[in-house]
């Protein structure tokens, strides 16, 4: 008998604080009013954060919607 494969959900709603942490990182480190000049201090390693952020977002997509299963409750 052929196993029916469920479709991945088309919408994942990130309501809990943990799953939207990546959005928090994106909003605070790459958005917001920038005042001209070199006034953002002490953000060593932020470039690395930018590099990895999209990779982490992709990973979140895999974890949160693995082949149609709901994310596991913690």
């Amino acid at each position, binding site marked *: 008998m052929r196993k029916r494969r469920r479709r991945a959900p*088309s919408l994942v709603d990130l309501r809990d604080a943990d799953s939207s942490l990546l959005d928090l990182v994106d909003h*605070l*480190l*790459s958005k*917001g009013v920038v005042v001209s000049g070199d*006034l*953002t201090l002490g*953000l060593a390693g932020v470039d690395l954060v930018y590099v990895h952020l999209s990779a982490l977002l992709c990973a979140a*997509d895999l974890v949160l919607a693995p082949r149609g299963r709901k994310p596991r409750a913690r």
Partner: protein
Amino acid sequence: MTGPERPALYLYALLGSLPPRPSRGLRVLAVAGLQVAAREVHPETSPRPTVRALRGHDATIRRLARGVDAILPFRFGTVVPGPNELRRRLAPRAAELRRALALVAGREQMTLRVFGAPARRRRGPAARAGGPGARYLAARVRERAVPEIDPIRPAVAAFVRAERAERHQSPPLVASVYHLVDRGRSAAYRAALRRAARAAGGVRLHVSGPWPPYAFAPEPGE
């Protein structure tokens, strides 16, 4: 002999009005016709983007947002040497910042991450015609267009007051889309999105919010 060091200012947000109660440790400065929420910090403060610091910053922004109609957060980690330097930096941009505050007044942000296969995009005649300026603008529009979510746009159009978007070069993450919605309408926006998402044609959406309008600050030179 050197005198006591003057404190620097850690900037949180531009406000559309004075908050009813000043938050503990925060100052609201009037600068170039703008209200700036800031905290005095040691001049050599070097904010580190730890999870705790990011959450604390976001909590402060949200607390401020509850007391005012319009708020535009500064980027995390912004420290200026003092009020005079702050004035020098903000004054030339005061008009555009006031326009941005007017846009976000009474509104908040929903964030959409779009995953899936990128839509095939054709370069229209506008992309090839015109001078370098017109071609640059056409390319800029193309860079920010997200046709992958066109099927869901009609369902959320009634809620969306403004949109910012950026495409990503890291599949399967196709794009990030930031929608500005009226405060208190995020649940209705979510419900409309949920109903429409099935029509998104293989694209998966992650939605979060409501957020303060982090993505609606004017870009330098905008």
